[in-house]
């Protein structure tokens, strides 16, 4: 079985841990327990008849001007950038942040995910989507289990192609 290391990064509180929990354990909690350092979990996914063991690095959220330590990206095959659709400050610098992560990780493509879609109305969401400077791959909700699987599948695909 191939093991692939993937990372989840983004501002604090956007729902990285929640996405991982939903994906790995199919659980969700309203409680917010901020991640310190890195929490690594793994799950085997099947992709094009390949079994891949995903090593998911759930990295502590960053706040303004804070960077993910470079060492975390060692050996990483793919990364997901998560932002919170209900918090503008988590996506206001989306293109710069993505550029910085690409630089740091040496990865060419980052999966971009807007989470907490359940907090927005359909109209608000459509309006918001048109304002993003960078293509957003998936709009998810860890709470309502929307597009979570798809987001990680896309991540696995990118990991495999590298």
């Amino acid at each position, binding site marked *: 079985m191939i093991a692939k290391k993937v990372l989840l990064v983004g501002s604090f*509180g956007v729902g990285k841990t929640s996405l991982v929990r939903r994906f790995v354990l199919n659980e969700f909690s309203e409680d*917010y327990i901020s991640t*310190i350092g*890195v929490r*690594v979990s793994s799950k085997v996914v099947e992709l094009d008849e390949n079994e891949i063991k995903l090593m998911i690095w759930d990295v*502590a959220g960053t706040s303004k001007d804070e960077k993910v330590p470079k060492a975390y990206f060692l*050996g990483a095959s793919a990364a997901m950038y998560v932002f919170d659709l209900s918090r503008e400050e988590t996506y206001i610098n989306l293109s710069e942040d993505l550029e910085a992560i690409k630089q740091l990780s040496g990865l060419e493509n980052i999966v971009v995910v807007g989470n907490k879609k359940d907090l927005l109305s359909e109209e608000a969401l459509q309006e918001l989507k048109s304002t993003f400077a960078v293509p957003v791959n998936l709009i998810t909700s860890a709470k309502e289990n929307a597009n979570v699987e798809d987001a990680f599948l896309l991540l696995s695909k990118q990991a495999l192609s590298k």
Partner: protein
Amino acid sequence: MKPTNIDNLHIELIIDLNGDILKVSSGQFIKNQFAIGDSIYTICPFLLGTIEGLPLREPYLVEGMFINANDREYGIDLDLFKATDNVTVLINDRTNVYNFVNHLNQQRNDLFFLKRELAQKNKELHRLRKAADIANEQKSRFLAMMSHEVRNPLNVILGYTELISKEEISLKVKDYLKNLAISGRNLKVIVDDILDLSRVEAGKLQLANDPMNLHHIIDQIENNYKTSHKDTDVVLVFEADKTIPNSIFGDDVRLIQIITNLINNSIKFNVPDTDQADELLNMQPLNAIDYMLSLNEEAVMPIPYLELHIGFLGRDTGALDSILQRLKIRIKDDRRCVRISEKGIKFHFPEVDINHIGIVSDRHPSITPVIRPKGLDKHLYHRQLFEFIHSGKQNKQFVITSIIAELLRRDLSENRKPLSRHEFIGRNIIEETDASYALVIHRLNAVKTILAESQLPFTLRSNRGENGQKSKKRTSFFLQLEEEE
């Protein structure tokens, strides 16, 4: 505390490129977990992939990782160094540091979200306030309009009615006009009431504080009722006690309004059965009206106020209650006994003369002023009073106003026996700053005695001179209120 051995906080391992442990070079940190030949990935699964990605001969620090061993979780940092055929892994125990960081981080985030929530609530509040302001403005405009566009024509109608009635007209028309005038006046009262209520609600009702004559007021009210309740079988008897002082300070318009309201209610809820009526009559002063004297905090010399609180046998008195809450009548000079009677309502301003505190109600039938006997030294008197309170011989409870408490404390300590607050306020004493609040306590807790103090000129029978003349000298005395056993 045991000194921490530095060796227990780290371990250095050499592993091959497959992750198998070749050697433990130094340190003791969870050493039992690392046996030669074991895979490092068992304990550090996250190194899978990381080791492969490690560049040659470049030291790398990986911070903030967590491992589980010996049934607990450790926070660790790792120093990694890759050589051609092996990797050096130095694991440092940072559990305490990460626990601390965790704590701080959680607080930071909680604060962040709290702040956000607050900002949102503020926004909402702002919006609501705006809406309320607009509604209020509309209300004010409406009321101003009421005032002009309803009151004025009403006054015109009343004016012309009066003018016509002075003309030479038949008795029949005169009678019609009388009815017209009465109805017109009633309507005016209703309009005024509505306006008053809205002013009270807006906190804009200003109460006058002018001299007024209660005798005149009673006369006026009596006059008002000469014709109005003819069709009921209620007989109104108006009596003003001769001892009512002439100069009372207050708001005569409001007072008339209140008394009128009370009388109207009495008529409306009049019980035909005489036994019941008598019962009601006897009951009302107790339930309906409580008087309270409270002090004006700003005045250097406390000025007594009379505040009326009315709950009219649980009936809805609407605007009246609001007005009453704000009504203050100041009694000047000879504050003795005021009694205004009419069938169904009694007003008592019983015979007390106090300023800091007092309760005037049928529930407190015995009021005993304790006056310092002439010639007795003040300090000595306070000492005696103090000892009386503390004697424990009586099973009384006291509410004591702060002023008295302070006086006693001061006087007693001047007497070279300083008293701590703790020492002073015993189990049977409750100290209260606000005299009127002391009254409330008195009532709620059925405290037996209130001690209050007065320094105003006062008149009491026992304080009169030999020839019965009022003495106006300033004296300090204590008022003791006792509940009847």
